[in-house]
């Protein structure tokens, strides 16, 4: 696919719509999967053998349901009803089942689809909102490190970055929907699993408890990683133009993981006595901040992001399946191995201080280290591939002479360190407004070059935006008047 220099190159077919054609349908499908898993949890609870009172210890498992959980159950049912009504209405009007009604406009259809998505997903936000709102001091304590890590994750995109609002959406999913889905499902499991394991004659209690120890973390791993990966999947299908490979996938997954980690940390801070809060903070907001959940969801995100360039359905399923398996397996392994290692920590470290300051990081490295290394490696490989592609694309853009990128800027654009130092200098001299303008300008240039590179790759799809529009944006930010943009600038002399 080559075009004459300066000519606006477009892909055959329609220009990409604001939302991918099947984006909302795909997002609704993911939401339906989460609802189905929730329904399965409810069915398992209903069918769990009842814990009889033949033993006095059963009272441990008969704690009342938390109020936010009960509210979630009701709101979910209402949400399903609303989604069903909207879906039925859409189906009838599209198939012409209501002849006297006018055909709905595109905006109406979109609004209904968003309504279905919201009705299916928003109920899961009840438990995290209750937890976060009810423990504001704990939330405020966790926010600074979490937001700092989010900034680091954003800047890990050394070249073209996805919009900040998309990363924030991923983080918000992790906090509310992913966190809520995990909390709800864990609550279901807490109330149904004991019945399956303890209603028998209890002749081999050790085996029963061993099964509980193994299956509970496995179940937790499956539901929490599913909830988090669903966020990456929904954002990928809705905003495919911005999620363009493993780098975007890893970063989006990491943002979702950070959000989930925040909700989980506040949840645990509310469980433990106030005397143990700083240990939880050390474990989850220092040592475990960029490990555990961030690593697991980053791997799931890498699998999802990779599908953008995989042509066959089989390869896409393998990539997604591999990422999910890594995430779920890692979460399960971390929980089980941590329990075993922690049982021996007192033998390895003579005092609690050493056990805390050295033991916890060592155990975290043993359990999550491989997964952290894996996502770091995937990120590094993705960034290297980007650098190679961008080098070619930037030179091609400079040669075409339209002024969006000039040859001296290429070295600057390809060096994240130089750009960071320039940002600091511009901020010092021109303030935040100057810095924002510089960031927008350079990101527009990098986006133009990135999409140019994507157009030349096998598997280029229709979500790649039009080159002319991207170039226009760069020139607009550069301050080139609109009338001058249509005139070709003098061709650059040949590169030395």
């Amino acid at each position, binding site marked *: 696919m080559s075009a004459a220099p300066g000519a606006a190159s477009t892909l055959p077919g329609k220009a990409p719509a604001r939302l991918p054609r099947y984006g909302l349908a795909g997002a609704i499908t993911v939401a339906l999967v989460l609802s189905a898993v929730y329904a399965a949890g409810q069915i398992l609870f209903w069918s769990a053998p009842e814990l009889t009172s033949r*033993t006095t*210890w059963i009272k*441990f*498992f008969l704690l009342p349901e938390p109020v936010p959980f009960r509210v979630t159950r009701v709101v979910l049912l209402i949400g399903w009803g609303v989604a069903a009504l909207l879906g039925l209405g859409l189906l009838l009007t599209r198939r012409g089942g209501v002849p006297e009604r006018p055909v709905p406009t595109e905006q109406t259809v979109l609004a209904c689809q968003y309504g279905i998505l919201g009705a299916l997903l928003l109920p899961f936000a009840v438990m995290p909102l209750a937890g976060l709102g009810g423990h504001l001091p704990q939330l405020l304590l966790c926010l*600074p490190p979490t937001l700092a890590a989010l900034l680091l994750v954003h800047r890990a995109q050394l070249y073209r970055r996805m919009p900040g609002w998309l990363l924030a959406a991923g983080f918000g999913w992790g906090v509310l929907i992913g966190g809520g889905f995990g*909390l709800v499902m*864990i609550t279901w499991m*807490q109330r149904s699993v*004991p019945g399956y394991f*303890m209603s028998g004659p*209890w002749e081999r*209690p050790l085996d029963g*408890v061993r099964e*509980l*120890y193994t299956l*509970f973390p496995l179940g*937790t*791993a499956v539901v*929490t990683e599913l909830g988090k990966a669903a966020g990456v999947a929904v954002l990928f299908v809705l905003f495919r133009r911005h999620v363009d490979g493993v780098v975007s996938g890893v970063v989006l997954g990491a943002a979702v993981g950070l959000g989930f980690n925040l909700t989980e940390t506040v949840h*645990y801070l509310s*469980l*433990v006595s106030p*005397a*143990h809060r*700083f*240990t*939880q*903070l*050390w*474990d*989850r907001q*220092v040592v475990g901040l960029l490990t*555990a*959940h961030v690593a697991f969801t980053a791997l799931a995100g890498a699998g999802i992001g990779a599908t953008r360039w995989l042509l066959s359905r089989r390869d896409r399923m393998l990539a997604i399946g591999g990422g999910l398996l890594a995430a779920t397996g890692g979460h399960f392994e971390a*929980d089980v191995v*941590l329990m075993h290692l*922690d049982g021996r*920590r*007192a033998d390895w470290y003579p005092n*609690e201080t050493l*056990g*805390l300051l050295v*033991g*916890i990081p060592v155990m*975290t490295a043993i359990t999550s280290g491989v997964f952290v290394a894996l996502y770091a490696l995937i990120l590094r490989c993705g960034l290297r591939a980007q650098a190679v592609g961008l080098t070619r694309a930037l030179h091609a853009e400079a040669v075409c002479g339209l002024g969006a990128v*000039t*040859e*001296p*800027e290429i*070295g*600057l654009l390809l060096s994240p360190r*130089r750009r960071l*130092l*320039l940002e*600091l*200098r*511009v901020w*010092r001299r021109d303030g935040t407004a100057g810095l924002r303008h*510089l960031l927008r300008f350079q990101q527009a240039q990098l986006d133009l070059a990135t999409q140019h590179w994507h157009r030349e790759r096998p598997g280029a799809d229709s979500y790649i935006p039009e080159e002319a529009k991207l170039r226009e944006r760069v020139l607009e930010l550069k301050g080139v008047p609109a009338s001058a943009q249509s005139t070709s600038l003098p061709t*650059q002399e040949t590169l030395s």
Partner: protein
Amino acid sequence: MTGSRIVRLSTLVAAAATLVLGTPSSASAQCAAPTYHGGLPLWIGTCPETVAGGASAAVWVLIVLTAGLWAARALARSDSGGTTDLQLIDRVFDQEEPPNTEDER
């Protein structure tokens, strides 16, 4: 059911409840590692909370200080490349005809 079996069973049930339901165990033992399954660890005793709080704060202060010092040092260094990058970007926005090669900067 013998007495020892009852004691063993009650211990196992209490441990399972702690794992599953997250109810803190009264058995005080060591300071526990994090869990990621929604329940609390089996043993959660006295932890050096002051050390934990101090270490958490210290790590973050160290990170922020390191980043700040790096940035300050990088800016203060009389690096001609950095000043040239500022001049380059100024020329780009002034829409001057930029030099064709890096050598001309």
